[in-house]
């Protein structure tokens, strides 16, 4: 009986105390008709040893060479201390810190995380995480719509009017997909990204489109380019729309933080915390972050930790503003989110403490420099060019002069994860790969990628 401690004697004694003849008797309130299920198709249980052997075999199959794909998930160095600490039973096997006095560890970590994220984004407040970057964008849109509907309500408008959200420039298409799924049933329509020929925001198209409740802009954008965030923010402010920034937290060590975009900064900032000490691990678990202005704090979904005092006046931490949440407000909550991505927040907090401002800056700078090296190496080949000329952070679109999908498959056959073919997501970029080099990529890695690509293109 894996993980069940009961001896036969235990079972007997307990049943006797209950006054039941058998365990099955404890299920006597369930219709016998409902107890006839066939679980036959399940396999027999195996020990940990055999389980690990089988899982290792599968894991080994998927081991690859160095990774040059980014697109929202990045192969950064993770200090060994991060997961040594985050995997401690005390962090890993605790529940949500509902009993604050017995959960000061988790609560203080979240408070520190909140402090770090607001420092990084130059925003006022943040929650304790949502699921991921995609759902964070969905929640950001809902927040913005709540805030703008409230404004409209105060102005006497009806609640049910359909709401438009504009997307300025190349925003991660999978984030947009997730956000649409999440917001669709609330009468919200998220527009197509408005991308100019230079790969950045098409400001004219933005001005020409329907009046949005909010404008979404991603920095760096999905194509790796540094966006015109100041202009977009100014435009939104002057058109009464909230500005939602989608940001890469590593990039924020270098780039102007969203709290300082335009004149007054962004209203809502979200993104995925994966770059902060979280393994790629097929994209999850990671965490979504969500920051905003003090004035919108009651529109934030999810958990928030506050510092307070105990009955002896000593500092301590507790979940606060719970009246926003589903377990108190039920149908009136800001969101249905309950379980979030707490352990990943713990890892990110340790990561940020270890990196500090200088560590994160160096990582960001190195990523940028390596990607430049990569682009230089690849475009030194005939028939390979850079698709856009604007400044990029750590991803770039390279044009290989033929449909990129089959080429990526050829690369895969030789074990190289060689960038994302863009045709599926952006048909006009069918000949393009979105490539990324993090601080981990060595000269030898880059040379090997160039070689593999040269071979694939020579076919």
């Amino acid at each position, binding site marked *: 009986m894996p993980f069940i401690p009961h001896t036969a004697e235990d079972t007997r004694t307990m049943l006797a105390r209950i006054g039941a003849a058998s365990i099955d008797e404890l299920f006597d309130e369930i219709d016998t008709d409902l107890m006839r299920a066939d679980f036959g198709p399940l396999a027999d249980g195996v020990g940990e040893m055999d389980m690990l052997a089988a899982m290792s075999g599968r894991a080994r199959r998927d081991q690859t060479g160095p990774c040059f794909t980014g697109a929202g998930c990045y*192969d950064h160095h993770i200090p060994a201390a991060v997961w040594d600490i985050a995997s401690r039973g005390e962090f890993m096997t605790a529940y949500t810190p509902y009993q604050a006095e017995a959960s000061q560890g988790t609560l203080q970590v979240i408070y520190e995380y909140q402090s770090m994220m607001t420092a990084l984004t130059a925003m006022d407040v943040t929650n304790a995480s949502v699921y991921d970057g995609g759902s964070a964008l969905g929640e950001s849109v809902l927040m913005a719509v709540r805030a703008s509907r409230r404004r409209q309500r105060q102005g006497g408008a009806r609640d049910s009017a359909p709401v438009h959200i504009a997307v300025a420039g190349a925003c991660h298409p999978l984030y947009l997909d997730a956000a649409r799924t999440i917001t669709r049933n609330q009468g919200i329509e998220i527009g197509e990204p408005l991308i100019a020929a230079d790969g950045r925001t098409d400001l004219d198209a933005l001005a020409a489109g329907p009046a949005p409740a909010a404008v979404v802009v991603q920095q760096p954008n999905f194509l790796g380019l540094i966006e015109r965030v100041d202009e977009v923010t100014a435009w939104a402010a002057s058109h009464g729309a909230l500005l939602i920034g989608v940001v890469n937290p590593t990039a924020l060590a270098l780039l102007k933080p969203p709290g300082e975009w335009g004149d007054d900064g962004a209203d809502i900032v979200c993104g995925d915390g994966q770059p902060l000490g979280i393994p790629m691990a097929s994209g999850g678990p990671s965490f979504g972050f969500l920051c905003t202005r003090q004035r919108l704090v009651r529109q934030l979904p999810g958990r928030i930790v506050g510092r307070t005092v105990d009955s002896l006046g000593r500092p301590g931490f507790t979940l606060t503003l719970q009246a926003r949440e589903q377990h108190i407000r039920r149908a009136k909550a800001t969101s249905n989110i309950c379980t979030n991505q707490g352990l990943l927040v713990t890892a990110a907090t340790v990561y940020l403490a270890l990196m500090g401002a200088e560590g994160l800056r160096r990582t960001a700078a190195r990523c940028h420099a390596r990607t430049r090296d990569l682009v230089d190496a690849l475009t030194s080949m005939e028939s390979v060019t850079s698709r856009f000329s604007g400044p990029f952070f750590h991803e770039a679109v390279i044009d290989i002069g033929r449909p990129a999908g089959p080429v990526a498959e050829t690369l895969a056959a030789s074990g190289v994860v060689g960038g994302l073919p863009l045709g599926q997501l952006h048909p006009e970029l069918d000949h393009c790969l979105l490539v990324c080099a993090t601080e981990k990529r060595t000269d030898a890695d880059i040379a090997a990628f160039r070689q593999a690509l040269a071979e694939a293109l020579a076919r």
Partner: protein
Amino acid sequence: MSERAPAVGTTTIFDIGAPGRRAHAQLAPDGDVSDLPADCLRASGPALPAVSELQAVRHYTNLSRCNFSIDNQFYPLGSCTMKYNPRGAHRAASLPGFLERHPLAPDALSQGFLACLYELQETLKVVTGMAAVSLTPMAGAQGEFAGVAMIRAYHDARHDDERSEILVPTAAHGTNPATAVMCGYQAREVAVGADGDVDIEALKAVVGPHTAGIMLTNPSTCGVFERRIVEIAAIVHDAGGLLYYDGANLNAILGKARPGDMGFDVLHMNLHKTFATPHGGGGPGSGPVAAGERLLPFLPTPYVARDTDGSGHDVYRWLTVDDRPQSIGRLSAFMGNAGILLRALAYAQMLGREGMRRVGEYATLNANYLMERLREAGLELAYPTRRASHEFIVTFREEAKTQGVTAMDIAKRLLDYGCHAPTTYFPLLVPECFLIEPTETETPEELDRFVEALIRIRDEVEREPELVRTAPHTLPVTRLDDVKAARELDLSFRTGG
């Protein structure tokens, strides 16, 4: 008596830094960024901590020690299924081949991972009795969202446009009504009877052409099995509504009974409960959603299909909206909480068919034993005539009335006895209650210790109520001031500094 070094709780990571201090071994080689336009750069570095590696390790190691957790304590948190999180499952999910896999890696480089997901989908189909499973929801609430959005997509596809309400019992978890609203529905409550079952007459009174569906937990959060579930299903179905099963309590019937056989059309499971993946201090979780034939076309993408290649080998691939045009779509950027899914699969493999059954059996045995012992000790049960499912409810309304000691006070005092408190004040319909869920992985001795502690606290309530009212007394902090926390918001070091 003594003066310890400053308690960690009073010192944040920001307090122990010094300008210029660094964890040097973590600095990457620098990179030239002079090609970036100056106006897009930040003027000064973010106000992050400036500590050495040892300082960070010591700080967070010591902070961890201020937590209760499954690895340290009995944690009978009702509705949360705080059971042992096998270290072997953690190991499996931490294999380098899995940790280093990029989510958008080509299928050809992902067959091992996809095979795992496919196996988990198949396992969950058998366990729930449903037709298909999508693993993408990242927690229970996102699973609920997916399920209700599927119900909506179904009605929409049939142009059955008048259905604007989702029914939820008064005992339901807060995520249920909140989910209904996120899907654009109104949440309409249905009363629960004195025996803990849904009041069938009340249900009949509200069900109708506006009913899009009903969300039920079974066993319910009253800690009892919803006995008339088949009848409820018939009533709702007859009215044209669909049934959503909130799988948070699946642990109670795992390997014994299946929601699919009870008439549910769609459900989610909480793998971080029933499948023993760790809660992580608030997540991550995973809430796969399973559908019957009717709702199958609407399942969220991506999920995994198995084909056979020319030479008869299994080949796995992602199913996307191209394959499932009626899908409600994507719920997150990638495919869900992959690492949690791998942990759940590892757990399922170790349990096997027999192990699954025993989970339900021993979770139920432990709950009924604990309930019986507390009954004998004279505590008041909320549903004394019922079997406990995997959890049950006691109420301290007498203590609150006569001694002015609340369920919360007793919960805090339990912490002093070295065990985590049960869920308090939920479900909302039972006053001053504890929802107690021991889970199958605890020994009878541990349950006895808990009974002992509650008996002693009850004595304290009588003889020294102030002791209980001011608990806890042995933790890093005493009772915290929640009101101050909400009134004088201090949400980050800068604003708080």
